[in-house]
């Protein structure tokens, strides 16, 4: 079984059939086309997109419905050529922390995954309906 030594997870073994293909890469990382979608116990609902081309590259994401339950997906015709939506599609928001440590989600550019075909695209919207820096809600205080 192929394996890779990643910065985020150390050594990972993976099945070729589990590899997720981003034919167009992701904006800023156009040459990174092969990723693993990783779910770890203890960090649900987070999902990790670990690059297989660059072991240091790993994005953290969350299912879109966990951030905005009413999110309305809109893909450009170009993105729809890469991937056709099905009921089986998984929609994720890439998360990032600003220098001040504040977490935001990119709702302008959801990652859309066709689980059956193992294809994915970061579908940058053409409208201005959602922000690329949508603030996550403040943590609830522990009672």
């Amino acid at each position, binding site marked *: 079984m192929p394996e890779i030594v990643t910065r*985020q997870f150390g050594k990972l073994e993976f099945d070729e059939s589990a590899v997720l293909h981003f034919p167009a890469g992701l904006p*800023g*990382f156009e040459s990174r086309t092969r990723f693993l979608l990783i779910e770890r116990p203890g960090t649900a609902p*987070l999902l990790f997109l670990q690059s297989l081309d660059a072991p240091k590259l790993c994005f*953290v994401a969350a299912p879109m419905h966990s951030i905005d339950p009413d999110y309305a997906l809109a893909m450009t015709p170009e993105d729809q050529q890469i991937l056709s939506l099905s009921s089986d599609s998984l929609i994720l928001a890439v998360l990032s922390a600003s220098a001040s440590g504040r977490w935001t989600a990119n709702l302008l550019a959801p990652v859309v995954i066709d689980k059956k075909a193992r294809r994915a695209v970061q579908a*940058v919207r053409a409208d201005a309906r959602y922000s690329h820096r949508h603030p996550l809600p403040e943590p609830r205080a522990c009672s």
Partner: protein
Amino acid sequence: MLVIRRKIGEILLIGDDVEVEILECSHSQVKLGIRAPKRITILRKEIQLTGEQNRLASRTISPAKLKNLLGHLR
């Protein structure tokens, strides 16, 4: 910001070798045709914003940061 009014079929020039032509116009959308040398990158602004955001997102996530992040989602 420079503001220019143009009609369909009219063209404006940027520098020596970029031409922007107004092709179609509806109440909510403008269709532009751009002629430029291959070395010039033409991007929708949203793609540039997402590229910057992706570079920020690609930084290593420490266990402490992850724990903090989970607090926002649970």
